[in-house]
């Protein structure tokens, strides 16, 4: 294990918002075996040390650094943590739809809600909850990373049983 390889992997994991091992491999041309060693080394270094406030986790195949749980209390004070209850019901509806389905067009959203969502989408866009990108002629809407980080909505929804809880088929 070379020092600069450890540093490289550490930098990439930090800068990415979660990255798969295979992508690390491709990006760095470090062999899988070496990579496993490095990841293991990093996990031991951070996760087991009382001197570190963060830890390296592997959640659903994505490597990412997280704050340690014992600091969650104090961290919730500094990080502008968006509270889900600041959303109106209609806004929440769309957020839940996007949290379970990831990407949707306005037409799809309208169909499920049985009404036009133009204004609510606009509100959510301007408050940084959702983003959109063009796909062909239509816009595709999804939750922003910042919002997902602030609310952990994905974790909440997946806690609820994930696909099974596809509220759109209700």
């Amino acid at each position: 294990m070379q020092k600069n390889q450890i540093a490289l992997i550490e930098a990439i994991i930090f800068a990415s918002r979660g990255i798969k091992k295979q992508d690390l491999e491709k990006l760095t041309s470090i062999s899988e075996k070496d990579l496993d060693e490095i990841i293991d080394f990093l996990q031991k270094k951070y996760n087991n040390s009382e001197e570190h406030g963060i830890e390296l986790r592997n959640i659903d195949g994505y490597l990412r650094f997280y704050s340690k749980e014992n600091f969650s209390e104090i961290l919730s004070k500094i990080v502008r943590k968006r509270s889900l209850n600041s959303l109106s019901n209609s806004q929440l509806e769309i957020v839940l739809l996007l949290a379970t389905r990831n990407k949707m067009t306005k037409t799809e959203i309208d169909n499920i809600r049985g009404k036009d969502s133009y204004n609510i989408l606009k509100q959510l866009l301007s408050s940084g909850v959702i983003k959109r990108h063009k796909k062909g002629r239509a816009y595709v809407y999804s939750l922003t990373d910042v919002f997902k980080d602030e609310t952990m909505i994905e974790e909440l929804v997946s806690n609820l049983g994930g696909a099974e809880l596809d509220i759109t088929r209700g």
Partner: protein
Amino acid sequence: MELLFKFEDFEGPLDLVLFLVKKNKLSIREIPLSLLADEFMEYLNKMKEMNLNVTSEFIVTASYLMQLKSKSLLPRSEEDKEFLSSKEKFYTQVEQYAKLKEMVENIKKSENIELKNYPVNVRIVFPKVNEKKLKRIIKNTLQEIEIKQKIYQIKKEELSIEVIMSQILTEHVGKNLFDILKESNSKYELIVKFLAILELIKLNKIYLDKKFKIKRVRENAKKSNSIN
């Protein structure tokens, strides 16, 4: 020959002023105010002739410039404090705007320059409950709930997380999570209830005990927790 330009380029009066400054190849402070004011009026008239949209902002700036011009022509104008300060204010505004436009050009160019250092963050882990057990509870609950209505019909029931949060605090403390969720009429209601409970946990208002009963967090307990 006149410099060719597109009138449409002058989105606002300051854009026209900067154009005139450039045309004269002098700095704003070096151009006589009377010249600047006259040229501004000239272009404004051309714009009107061409039926271009001359917004009120252009008119305001034009009259301001004419005012400055007439004051500048008075004897001993350089001793008139009021004149000097409004002149300075105008120059500063133009210079600031020029700087802003320069920044725009620079930032466009700098786009291709690689950043040397990227900021990094970690994801924050908020207080959590025992996930596996919780998941099982939710699944069991779900099986008991008949889905009665589609989401847009249910919406009419006014389920706001906020309301449900206060409901939980006032009515459901001491009850088992499973029992609370079971009372839901739809998946949607269940999700909202569940979110409300997680929200309260996150806000450190309640916690779930080992039997998944909802307990209130006492104030003094909060403090001692936060230091660790």
